[in-house]
Structure formats: C-alpha cells, structure tokens
C-alpha cells in the first residue's frame, strides 16, 4: 500500500523535463552544439517549430545527463519508466522502435544462431538478422481466410518448432500484431524458458497493454525477457521515440553496449523529454484514457457494423488459440464484401474525404485510434464509410484476399543480402533467391525477405498489390519492376555501386 503511494508520487516526476526547465532558467550561454544556438542561427526553423521547442534542442551535458551512459536525470527517467511498465529496466530509445527491436535481437543472437519467430514480423526484425547473421526459423502463422490476415502463433506450433530446433536462442512474439491479434505469450514464454530460450516481444502496437483495464497481457507481465514499446504510437510521445524494456534475467550493461553500437551519441532532448512526459501521463492517467479509447473504438465498431457490408472485427474472433486475445483499441475493418480492396478504401478516404487512416491492405483497413481522438472525427470516419459504400459498392468477384505464402528460406538474410546479385524483371525471377525485401508499407511486413525463394504465387501477389495501388517498398528499383536476386554460380560477396 505504502509502496503503491510512493510509486504514484514518484511517477508525478519527469526528471528530464524538469532538468530542461531548470536548464532554461539558467540561461546558459551555449558554446557547444547544436549550432543553431537555441534557434538564433536559424530563424526560419524557429518560425516553424517555435522558440520553446528549439530552445530545448540541446546537447548532452552534465545537468542533462548523457544517453550513452546515463547517470543522473536520464537514469532516473529510465527507472521511472521501468517501474511504470513493471520491467527490471527500461532504455529510452531515440531511433524508433526499429532500433529497440534491433537491439533486442542483437543482444540475444550472434551469427549462425537460430531465432524462432512468426513470418508476419516487422521489417526491422529481419533487418536485424541481416546485421547479425542469425537464422530465422518461421512458425507458420494461422490465417483467417475470410479476412485475409495472419493471426497469432499457436502454442502447439511454437512447441513443435522449439522441439525441432532445440539449439534456437530466442523466440520472438508480436504482442499484438498490427491488427490487434495476440498469441498466448505467457504460455509461449513458459515453454521457451523451459528450453533455455529468451522471449523477445515486439510490442510496437501494445504500449497501452501496460495501463488499460481488461487489456491483453503485456510482455513483462507474461515474463518475457525483452520488449520493444512504441511510445510514439499509443503512448503519445514524439515520432521516433521508443522504449526497450528488459526483465530480470537480462544483463543491463550488455544491452546498453549493444544499443550504443548503432545509436546516435547526440540523442534528441525533444524525443527524450517527450518519452519522459508521456510515461508520466500514462502512469498517472493512462488507465482512464485507455478506457475512454476502448469505448470510442467499440462505438465506432458498432456504428460501422450497422452499415451492411463492412465488418469491424473484435473480440468475437478470440478462440484462445491462434487468436488468444484481441486488442479492442484497434479499429480494423474488412472492406472486401463491398467490392473494394482495403487499399482502395484507404485511397478514397484520403483523396475524397480528407481522412488519413493508418493503412489498407488487400481486404482490410486499419484506422488508428488513440488518446488524441474525439467523437466528432470518429463520426466523420463512419459517415465516410457509409458514403463510400453508397457510391462504390460492387460485386467482389475477382478480388483477391491476402493469403499467407509460406516462405522458403534458402539462405540466411545476411548471406543473401551480401552475396553477389543481379537485377531481373519481376516476372523472370521465379525460382531465384531474393536478396532484398519487398513489402507493402504500412504495415511493413515483408512479402519477400532476403534469402527467400521467389515463387509464382509471390510474383502474382506483388503484381496484384501494385495494381491495387499498395505502396510497395524495399527493392533497390524504385518502380518495383525489377528485383535483386542472388547470382547463381560462384558467390563472392560484393556491393553494387552504380
């Protein structure tokens, strides 16, 4: 009881923010970087961002601590974040959740190590494998054929994969997926730990699990070893700021070293203070805010489901297996039954209704709701969907739904990325090993990852997604007409400069 009260009192502090306030009042004369000197050297930037903002864009210094080796206010902020999230330690990250995910993987895996993961991981996961040379062992995710989305990992599938790969070092779990679907992370953690494997959680879309009521279980609560938290998504901090959480069995000093391999030595205080303030807000008011958010999402789902033809899915899908739980703050809507691909609906919403949503895939859209939303904007979204149905509804014959294409991993991502390669027109790549990513962005989940064999199915899928207007990224060729594949024959690694 007393501890709870003192915790709550401690959470009212925002050490980095408070240090910046003290710093501002000291009116220090800057003979250090950044060179804009509180904005004086760049009035146009001040005009855009405001003097308060550029005034705290400052360098690491004694009163403000140093992100590479925190000993004072950043350390305190990290400890408060750890306590708010129930972690042994929290690292403030300024390179996006991508850097948190990469640090997790680089902390656990070396060249040649196996890591077990679902195929619907974010590109940052496979990027980390390119960097460290670990080998992905994919657990086939189940797929909902009607909605065309990948679901969670079945515990039985994870168990089987672990038995087949007892030498794997870690298991990575999406908690939740972009669409809000959770695997049974607690059970998976138990099994992984029994087999001496680390459990890493990608919680880019799960910050609120740590604060809201009746939310799916968070990774730290489930006993996972590390978790990457996109504070800038549901947590409300500035874009590019994130947290990396670790449990009690992870060596904090080693993880710090790994982070410092790739992290900037000039961590932005705008990002750091936004993490600090957002953590405080979540700790003090997160519960109420997320309860409101769930209500708003439920309301939106109810209204959208009243318009026949759309399906805003939710907890009714939960089967305690491959959909172990569902994050009800996510507003995903299946649009295929009105004869529109998700990506088409996404484009119409933006081009004709001035509504920007998070993404559209072949069969669904995802509208990202957060603590910043108001009822009136939700009304606009629902009404726009009603109007789109009135104007565009057509037969859905011939519309493709997303399907899971089981990857054929022929090489590790690192081997293929650094091997000799040649560029071929997409249609001529059948049977070759891809040496780069192809993905729709967002959600940024690879259709092809480096080291995977290209099949007819994949080629058809890429061409269809292009035709429907998906924003494809990854390949060196901007127009995505050609793909880099591993050169056959002798394979000396080299880089291609043109």
């Amino acid at each position, binding site marked *: 009881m007393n501890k709870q009260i003192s915790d709550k009192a401690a959470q009212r502090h925002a050490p980095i923010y408070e240090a910046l306030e003290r710093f501002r009042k000291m009116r220090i004369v800057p003979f250090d970087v950044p060179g804009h000197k509180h904005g004086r050297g760049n009035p146009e930037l001040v005009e855009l961002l405001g003097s308060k903002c550029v005034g705290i864009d400052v360098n690491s210094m004694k009163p403000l601590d140093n992100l590479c080796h925190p000993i004072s206010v950043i350390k305190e902020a990290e400890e408060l974040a750890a306590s708010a999230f129930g972690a042994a330690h929290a690292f403030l990250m300024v390179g996006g959740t991508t850097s948190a995910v990469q640090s997790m993987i680089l902390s656990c895996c070396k060249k040649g190590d196996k890591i077990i993961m679902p195929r619907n991981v974010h590109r940052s996961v496979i990027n980390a494998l390119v960097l460290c040379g670990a080998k992905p062992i994919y657990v086939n995710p189940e797929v909902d054929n009607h909605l065309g989305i990948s679901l969670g990992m079945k515990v039985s599938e994870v168990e089987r994969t672990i038995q087949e790969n007892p030498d794997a070092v870690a298991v990575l779990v999406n908690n939740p997926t972009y669409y809000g679907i959770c695997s049974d992370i607690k059970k998976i953690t138990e099994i992984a730990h029994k087999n001496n494997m680390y459990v890493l959680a990608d919680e880019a879309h799960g910050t609120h699990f740590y604060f809201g009521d009746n939310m799916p279980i968070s990774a730290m609560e489930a006993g996972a070893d590390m978790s990457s938290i996109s504070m800038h998504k549901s947590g409300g901090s500035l874009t590019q700021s994130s947290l990396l959480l670790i449990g009690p069995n992870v060596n904090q000093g080693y993880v710090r070293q790994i982070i410092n391999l790739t992290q900037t030595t000039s961590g932005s205080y705008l990002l750091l203070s936004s993490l600090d303030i957002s953590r405080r807000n979540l700790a003090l008011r997160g519960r109420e805010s997320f309860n409101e958010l769930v209500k708003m999402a439920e309301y939106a789902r109810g*209204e959208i489901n*009243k318009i026949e033809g759309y399906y805003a899915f939710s907890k009714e899908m939960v089967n305690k297996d491959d959909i172990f739980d569902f994050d009800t703050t996510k507003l995903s809507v299946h649009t295929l039954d009105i004869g529109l691909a998700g990506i088409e609906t996404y484009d119409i919403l933006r081009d004709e209704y*001035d509504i920007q949503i998070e993404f559209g895939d072949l069969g669904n859209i995802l509208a990202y709701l957060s603590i910043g939303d108001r009822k009136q904007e939700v009304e606009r979204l629902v*009404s726009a969907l009603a109007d789109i149905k009135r104007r565009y509804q057509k037969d859905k014959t011939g519309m493709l739904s997303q399907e899971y294409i089981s990857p054929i991993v022929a090489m590790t991502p690192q081997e293929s990325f650094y091997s000799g390669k040649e560029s071929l027109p997409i249609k001529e790549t059948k049977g070759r090993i891809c040496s780069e990513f192809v993905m729709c962005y967002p959600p940024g989940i690879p259709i092809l990852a480096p080291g995977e064999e290209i099949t007819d199915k994949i080629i058809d899928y890429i061409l269809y997604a292009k035709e429907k207007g998906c924003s494809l990224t990854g390949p060196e060729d901007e127009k995505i007409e050609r793909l880099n594949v591993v050169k056959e024959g002798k394979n000396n690694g080299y880089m291609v400069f043109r």
Partner: protein
Amino acid sequence: MDIWYSDNHTDNINFSLRINRQLFSAESELQRIDILESVEMGKVLVSDGDLVFTQKDEFIYHEMITHPAMAVHPNVRKVLVIGGGDGGVVRELIKYSTIEKIDVVEPDKLLVEVCSEYFPEIAGSLNDKRVSIRYEDGLRFIRSKTDVYDLIIIDSPNPFGHGEGLFTKEFYGNCYNALRDDGIMINQNECPFYEEEAYQCQRMHNKIVKTFPIVKVYQAFIPSYPSGHWLFGFASKQYHPTKDLNKVDWYIKGIGTKYYQPTIHEGVFALPVYVEELLKNVE
C-alpha cells in the same frame, strides 16, 4: 462603461459592436455560448467568440436559407434542419402549412435552452407541434436515413469549430442519400470575399458539385457577417432553382417575409464575376 465586442472577420479585420452588457455566458461540452446586448444591433448570440447572429439582421440569413427552396419545391412535407437550435430556420419553416414534419438535429442542448430564454421570438418556433428536436451529432443522425426528406437545411456555424463534420463530403453524400428523389439541400456557403472564407467556400462547393446533379449558389447581404456578402448553396436532385420557381404559388400562400420575395429570388442567383469564377474553378 465602454465595452466593445469584436468578431474577427480576418486576422486583420474586426467587426466591433458597442455592448451595453453581457447577459449570459456558459460553456457546454461543445462550445462557449455568450449573449451580449449591443447598443445598435440588439441582442447578439456568440459561439466560441464568433458572432452567430444579431437580433437586428438575423431575419436576412434565416429567410434566405429557407424560402428559396420552399418556393421551388412544390410539395415539401418533411424537412430536416441540421444545427438550427436557435430556432431561426424553423420560425421561417412553420409559416408553411403544407409542411408536416420538421426534424431539428442540434448537438448542443444548452444552445436551445439559452435561445429559448433570450430569443423567445425566434426559438419559440421550436414549440410548434410539427417540430421534433434531436440532440445529437448531425453526421451521425443522417447516416442511417434513406429517402426520407424533401428538404434538408444545413444551418451550421463555421467550418472550423465543432461543426466541422457538417462541411464534409461524407456529410453531403449522406444528405443526398437521405433526400427523396426530388429533394433539395440548402447550405450556408460562407463569404466569397476574404481569402480564408473564399477557400472554404470553394471547398464546400466542390464537394457539393460532386454529390448533386444540380448545384447553384445564391447570395444575400447580411451586415454583421464577414464582408456582409454571404453565399448559400442550392443543391438539388431534380428541381432547378430558377427555372422551377413558382412565383404565383408562393404569393398565394401569403408567407410574410422582410427580405425574401420571388423577384429577389430571380436576382440572387446572378453572381458577381469574381464569385462566379471562384466557383467555376472548382466545378
């Protein structure tokens, strides 16, 4: 005492009224509402600092948003007023005995209460037995309505505040859907003179043109509104605003007005060249 209330028409132009006293001020969930007693323009209704209407010239706005459509459509029975919790539009509508039902969808209950106290001569109209008031979001209300109304009047404040959803394509689209096959939609279409408003004017017009087959804009002169020159949109599925005007029928009804009359009706659709170009650019 020297009290002045200023309505910002642009960042650099104010419209100022000498005020005797402030009669009321309160905040609802949606807006701050003030009632001021001005020296020359009578009582003034203010929302979030913006002038909504003055007692002296509100008749122009309320007549002109109502009667042109009523003089064109030969058989208006069911009307929807979006916004309009002050009762001004309804006061004009209840002059027609042929109207059977008037739905008023006003999101802010406080506005209705305040107006019935301070502007009984306007808001008293809401007590007419044909009127039913729904306190909800207009966008939400109309979503589920198909083929119900002969006339929809969008009496919305401005495109930046809580009524923003009423200036959107989704709203106009849902209005189209809620109208019968020969229905008409009237909206206040902002002022074409100042840059910011002119831009909004174009955006609205563009969205409505894409939604309705017949869209014409008409004008009125309202002293207390920005630049005094105000536009309305006439969007229709079937009837043409001037070709289908039935002057004789309207006169026979004996509707009492202070601004509108069928001869004005023919004139107000003739627009200044710059306004015509402004609109044509987005058609």
